[in-house]
């Protein structure tokens, strides 16, 4: 009987599981063709819509036409690329619980938590790759403007990275709800809608009424996208970076702790169907 060596290389091998997303998406033309079509169409329509809205005004809610358009287009990319569909693979948490294949997660030498992270990194990595490509294309076409300064760009990148961490934790919470409630496809859709709307992906948050924004400040969603995009387009000055980082760090730490605790409780609660 051979066992895996304790070498650092063998510890990294499970991370090759990130390939699953890439293989799934790229070996089925219907998936990336529809993806490309949806992105191009929505980017074009969004661009035209925002330019049309700004036909009569110069500045609105502190954003001029270039800023608002760039923000909106980046928001479209975020929504399109954040959620990689795992359903056809049988890999959504709801399916795993319902079909009972979640049982395998507990008899593998990689902990469920670690494996979940590996898969999410695969998804997010794939999404980021598409996003980067689309971003460069939009920059070339002049649809998205560059950041006002290098510092602003760096600040946006930093807060985006932290924002992705928060997004990850939020997704974990929704997915782990499967261990407690039998049916939760509605919760999944609900959180998707909430995170789309409240993060600013639907439309720049600056346009919403003041009470809405104040209430939203108590939620983590706006720090996932609104913060980096606002820094990128220059709506928020770079000097606001430390404050925003503190907010994100707070949410990240809090959610991280909570999800760590949730994983422990979930592992004790596995009730796999069938007996």
């Amino acid at each position: 009987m051979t066992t895996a060596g304790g070498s650092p290389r063998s510890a990294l091998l499970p991370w090759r599981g990130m390939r699953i997303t890439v293989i799934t998406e790229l070996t089925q033309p219907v998936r990336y063709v529809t993806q490309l079509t949806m992105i191009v169409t929505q980017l074009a329509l969004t661009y035209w819509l925002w330019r049309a809205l700004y036909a009569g005004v110069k500045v609105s809610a502190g954003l001029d036409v270039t800023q608002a358009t760039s923000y909106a287009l980046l928001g479209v990319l975020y929504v399109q690329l954040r959620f990689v569909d795992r359903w056809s693979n049988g890999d959504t948490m709801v399916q795993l619980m319902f079909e009972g294949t979640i049982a395998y997660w507990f008899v593998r030498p990689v902990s469920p938590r670690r494996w979940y992270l590996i898969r999410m990194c695969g998804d997010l990595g794939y999404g980021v790759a598409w996003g980067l490509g689309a971003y460069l294309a939009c920059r070339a076409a002049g649809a998205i403007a560059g950041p006002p300064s290098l510092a602003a760009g760096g600040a946006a990148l930093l807060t985006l990275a932290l924002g992705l961490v928060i997004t990850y934790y939020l997704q974990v919470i929704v997915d782990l709800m499967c261990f407690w409630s039998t049916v939760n496809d509605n919760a999944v859709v609900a959180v998707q809608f909430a995170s789309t709307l409240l993060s600013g992906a639907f439309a720049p948050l600056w346009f919403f009424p003041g009470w809405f924004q104040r209430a939203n400040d108590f939620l983590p969603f706006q720090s996932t996208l609104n913060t980096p995009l606002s820094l990128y387009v220059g709506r928020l000055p770079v000097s606001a970076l430390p404050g925003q980082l503190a907010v994100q760090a707070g949410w990240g730490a809090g959610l991280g702790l909570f999800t760590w605790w949730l994983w422990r409780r979930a592992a004790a609660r596995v009730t796999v169907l069938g007996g």
Partner: protein
Amino acid sequence: MRITASRAQPWLRGFLGEWRTALRITATSFRARAQYRGDFITALAMGLAWQTSVLVFATVILTRFPGLGGWTSGGVLLIVAIRLLSHGGFVLVFNSLIMIPYIVQQGALDGYLIRPMPVYRQVLLYTFPLNALGDSFSALLLFAFAIARVHLAWTPLMALYLVAAVIGGVLLEAGIQTFVSILAFRFTMPMAVFMWFDRMIATFGNYPFSILPLAARAFLTYLLPVAFVAYLPAAVLTGRIASTGVPGWLAYASPTAGPLIYILARCAWYRALRRYESVGG
């Protein structure tokens, strides 16, 4: 022409019987869904929240971007109102269309093919659309709110046209999603594709298209015919047909686009169903 009572009655009884069966199935689905407590409440709450935020944003757009191609805020609210209500209607009846990839994957479609009920109807009865309750209820409220803010001299004819427009909108959205669902027979489609169409109609259906450049307008009128859902009927009701850029008769006839596309979609759907090969296993 004499329609004898004996000839009409069996048809009527059959028709009513089918409705009764459909309602009974719906009641059972409701009971089944209601068992899952958290799911139920979440669905209702989310439907409400989402619709409200859409309306909030529409109002925001109006206040921040005045003069939308000459449309008053009342007119834009009319567009939003018609779209919200038709979406509410769509979700109430046709929500299960987006579950078709799931139905196909489960192999349930094979079972439907041998049952004595039209397959399309069985698909629609697949599950009780919980989120529809929230969506439709809030859509009604918001519709009433919007209509109250629209300052029009309502005549019975206009009211009838409004109703026709809403029904047309329901059928148009249903037609689009039915066409999309045909893909599910051949490919393993992610539900995201349905949601994308839903998002497109939701996002772009709220604005007067006269503000958009020609390319966008043409796309949204002839390729992805969102214009017929709410924009064109609202243009007719508020007397702004000239600014739409489409011929007058087309604008007046906009409520008929929905039923037309729906019928086409259903025919194509059944055609595709016949060529359907069941999932291996």
